[in-house]
């Protein structure tokens, strides 16, 4: 059940964490995935983030470009598109309202 709860909470929020990480600068896959996976509440492992990145590419919220790497093969960099920025702004306002409502009802306002 714990596993199911964490999955349910991640669903619908993790993608916006990805958008937020890309807000100020493009990042390449390994960099992005390592940063997200460091937050253990958000992900189970680094590999589980790739299906999400694929979906974000298809939705047009992120765009990718290949760039030469100082070491090893070229890297695919992810950056936020205009649509992605709008989606993130929309999520921010929705999230605040959502969080406030849940906190109030569940009794976690001051925790």
């Amino acid at each position, binding site marked *: 059940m714990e596993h199911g709860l964490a999955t349910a909470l991640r669903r619908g929020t993790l993608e916006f964490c990805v958008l937020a990480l890309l807000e100020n600068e493009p990042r390449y*896959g390994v960099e992005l995935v390592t940063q997200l996976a460091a937050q253990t509440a958000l992900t*189970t*492992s*680094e*590999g*589980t*983030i790739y299906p*999400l990145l*694929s979906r974000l590419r298809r939705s047009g919220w992120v765009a990718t470009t290949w760039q030469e790497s100082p070491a090893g093969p070229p*890297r695919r960099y992810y950056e936020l598109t205009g649509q992605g920025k709008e989606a993130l702004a929309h999520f921010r306002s929705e999230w605040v309202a959502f969080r406030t409502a849940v906190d109030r009802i569940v009794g976690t306002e001051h925790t």
Partner: protein
Amino acid sequence: MNQQQADRLDRLVEDYLGAVSWACGDLPPQRRDELIEDLREHVAAARAVLYEPTEAAVRTILDRLGEPSAIAEEARLAEGLPVRPAAADPAPAPAQPPEVTRSPSAILGMLLGFVLILVAILATATLLMAGR
């Protein structure tokens, strides 16, 4: 690192990717291939910055990517597929149009109704005739 060692590490990576691909058997082939390519790139980029490309270091990269089944589960979620499909789930039987069957009692009821209507018409006609 000699060629033999490098080959062994490559095989380690390919075995892992093969396991992910197998776990993603129910994904559309295009999605599955895309995912495997993303993971292959990840491993290549992570290997490129290793201080020492030992087997332990490569295993750590793969461990951090996680269990193939967990990645497959996330891929199904992203595709909107059921999270845990039963592996031995039989294909659903083709839908058949519902057969129109009438039980004997239904046929009897219809006959009785028909007879009653006939009787009513006859009775009305008789009454009208008698009324003249």
